[in-house]
């Protein structure tokens, strides 16, 4: 157990050392969440100024959605890009012939993803409070649960992306930036699931994020914790993580059979 934790720490340490020596990477972590927050902050300021009451509340829901969806996006990218860093540095061969198990690799990448997400999203949260007086912490402890559910969803998607990189090589790396953006319409970040066409609603409800954002709206608009949506989000997270974890392991073994671990960066 101790050796396993140490191997996971070795992987985390490798990425922390990289960030310590590469300030642009740290800036990049914060850049998009802050940019998103500023743009949506002006939109919400406009909405809040244009109308009263409902518009003002809707503005808060928009900002909450922006901040929480950034957590999911950063979580997925943090995982996938940390894996890509090993490909870009041509270090993957050394990693895969070390005693680091695939599960430990996943744990190390998930830990890095969490750190990257916190570094990316916390400044945006602070900015939302300073510039637009939007205090996401007002949601209370349930915010931690929303954050955790979206983090886990980001890991599940990232496992799928990493499996695709193992299958298709570095040619699939564009997925690391794009795939979760494609799910935005179905995640119902800025509108209720009920807005979607009836045939699309079951698709949306298969995503943990749709339940998180339903729960977020219940918390912000009605001041209540919707336990049903929260539980559904975590159950779906577990299912998606299991499915994508199995896909990752399958592609890892397939890559060992094909020999693509030898030239994955090409």
């Amino acid at each position, binding site marked *: 157990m101790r050796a396993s934790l140490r191997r996971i720490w*070795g*992987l985390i340490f490798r990425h922390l050392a990289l960030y310590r020596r590469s300030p642009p990477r740290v800036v990049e972590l914060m850049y998009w969440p802050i940019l998103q927050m500023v743009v949506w902050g002006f939109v919400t300021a406009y909405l809040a100024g244009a109308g009263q009451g409902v518009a003002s509340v809707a503005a808060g829901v928009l900002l909450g959605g922006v901040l929480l969806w950034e957590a999911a996006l950063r979580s997925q990218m943090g995982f996938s890009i940390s894996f890509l860093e090993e490909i870009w*540095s041509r270090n993957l061969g050394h990693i895969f012939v070390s005693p680091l198990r695939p599960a430990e690799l996943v744990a190390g990448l998930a830990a890095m993803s969490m750190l990257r997400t916190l570094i990316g999203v916390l400044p945006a949260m602070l900015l939302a409070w300073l510039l637009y007086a939007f205090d996401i912490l007002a949601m209370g402890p349930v915010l931690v649960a929303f954050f955790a559910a979206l983090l886990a969803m980001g890991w599940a998607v990232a496992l799928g992306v990493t499996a695709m990189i193992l299958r298709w090589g570095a040619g699939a790396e564009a997925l690391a930036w794009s795939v979760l953006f494609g799910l935005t319409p179905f995640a119902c970040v800025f509108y209720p699931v009920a807005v979607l066409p009836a045939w699309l609603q079951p698709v949306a409800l298969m995503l943990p994020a749709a339940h998180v954002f339903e729960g977020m709206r219940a918390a912000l608009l009605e001041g209540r914790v919707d336990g049903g949506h929260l539980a559904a989000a975590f159950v779906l997270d577990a299912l998606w993580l299991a499915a994508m974890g199995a896909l990752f392991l399958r592609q890892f073994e397939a890559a*060992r059979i094909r020999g693509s671990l*030898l030239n994955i960066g090409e």
Partner: protein
Amino acid sequence: MNGPALVVEGLAKRFAPDRPPAVEDLTFTLPRGATWGLLGGNGAGKTTTIAMLLGLLVPSAGRILALGHDMAKDRFAALARMNFSSPYIALPHRLSVRENLEVYAHLYNVPRMRRRIAELAEEMALTEFLDRPAGELSAGQKTRVALAKALLNRPELLLLDEPTASLDPDTADWVRGRLEAYRAESGAAILLASHNMAEVERLCAHVLMLKRGRVVDQGAPADLVRRYGRADLEQVFLAIARAA
């Protein structure tokens, strides 16, 4: 621990049914404390063989026992006691030499990490470069760092892919000296793939000559030279490579 360092039985790899096998029916036993060479031209199957020995590639057939562990079932137990170096696989360039070695000391669960890194830095003449980014080092310095990484966990089985490629003769000679010293001190077994015949003659007690994925001959370098009636191992290599 008794028993050979490496037992390879009927090892084969075929990447596609319509392509010839990259490695076919490879069988050998590498004793502990010995250095063996894996020789062959480009495409002979050396890299494929090493990748299978490291668990990076699943064989199509055959069995590998590394330090008594079946690589098909228990490869991580073996990998913790092995190590590997190749000039074709880099260490992260932005990290300092010390950080790189610390990363791998954690991955290999090396006890008394700082002391071990200091020892290796001294042995490999790296002390003055420890805090310099690995990407800023010369080819020779990078090779020494890669070798230090490969020796971090005091491996009982060391696999080396062209350990002196692109090094000047002085540095290459120094690396060979370090490898000889490590084998003598530790009793480790070393399997090296190389195109440098002088290096193989100096380091290896036994060589496996590969051609089109098969062992076409093997023996001690001096025996091979005698048997083929050539002046040196390079001439033997050429004779084998050019034979139909």
